[in-house]
């Protein structure tokens, strides 16, 4: 017999937002940007977040000629930007697979797409792309960092503004109004 698990609701901007199961929403929000909000039926925000993250990520990949997302963590290079980029979810997973295969000395896949480069290759990329490599890296990092904010929104609901003291007490787990979200 299935057990009934009540979903979590918050009141924001005088609207009741049903977060359903926040952990599931957060997981989907990480996997596919916007999917967590789609699961919560916050469709407009799902579309906005999806468009924003994917467009900036794609723009970064175009500026960086598809070479700016890779995972590498060894004595040669510690790829810190990947910690931000991985926030974009499943679209960065090829880099993890390539890094794993690289450490196991297995042949790389997909014509070495998102494969960690050697130091010599990295120098060539920097020379060929000039600032495009750094700007592409920055764009994809921002896409990932934005998705961390989005995951947070899917899990907890919208945060109050930092300096907005009037919003204190607006959030509640016992909503008194039956308004529905915009999505």
């Amino acid at each position, binding site marked *: 017999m299935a057990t009934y698990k009540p979903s979590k609701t918050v009141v*924001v*901007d005088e*609207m009741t*937002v049903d977060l359903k199961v926040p952990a599931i929403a957060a997981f989907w929000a990480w996997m596919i940007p916007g999917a967590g909000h789609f699961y919560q039926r*916050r469709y*407009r*925000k799902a579309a*906005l*977040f999806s468009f*924003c*993250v994917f*467009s*900036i990520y794609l*723009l970064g990949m175009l*500026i960086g000629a598809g070479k700016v997302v890779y995972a590498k963590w060894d004595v040669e290079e510690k790829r810190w930007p990947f910690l931000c980029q991985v926030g974009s979810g499943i679209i960065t997973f090829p880099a993890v697979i390539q890094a794993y295969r690289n450490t196991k000395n297995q042949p790389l896949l997909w014509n070495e797409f998102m494969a960690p480069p050697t130091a010599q290759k990295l120098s060539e990329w920097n020379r060929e792309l000039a*600032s495009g490599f750094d*700007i592409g890296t*920055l*764009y994809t990092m*921002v896409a990932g960092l*934005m998705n961390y*904010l*989005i995951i*947070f*929104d899917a899990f907890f*609901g*919208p*945060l*109050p*503004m930092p300096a907005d003291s009037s919003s204190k007490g607006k959030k509640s787990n016992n909503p008194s109004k039956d308004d529905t*979200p*915009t999505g």
Partner: protein
Amino acid sequence: MTLQMSPTYLLLALPLLVVFSFVYAATRHERQDLILQQGWRTAIWITAFLGSIFLVLWLISLTL
């Protein structure tokens, strides 16, 4: 004094500015009108913040 980079580089900040402003606003509000208002305010704030840093660095560069 001339800018030591192409001004077109500044255009690269524009997509980031627009997208981040809307994402930030949408993680603070649920109502569409409030998201748009907050997004616009955030964009102005970021532009003013970066602009002021640019101005200070430009003034310093005049003295060099």
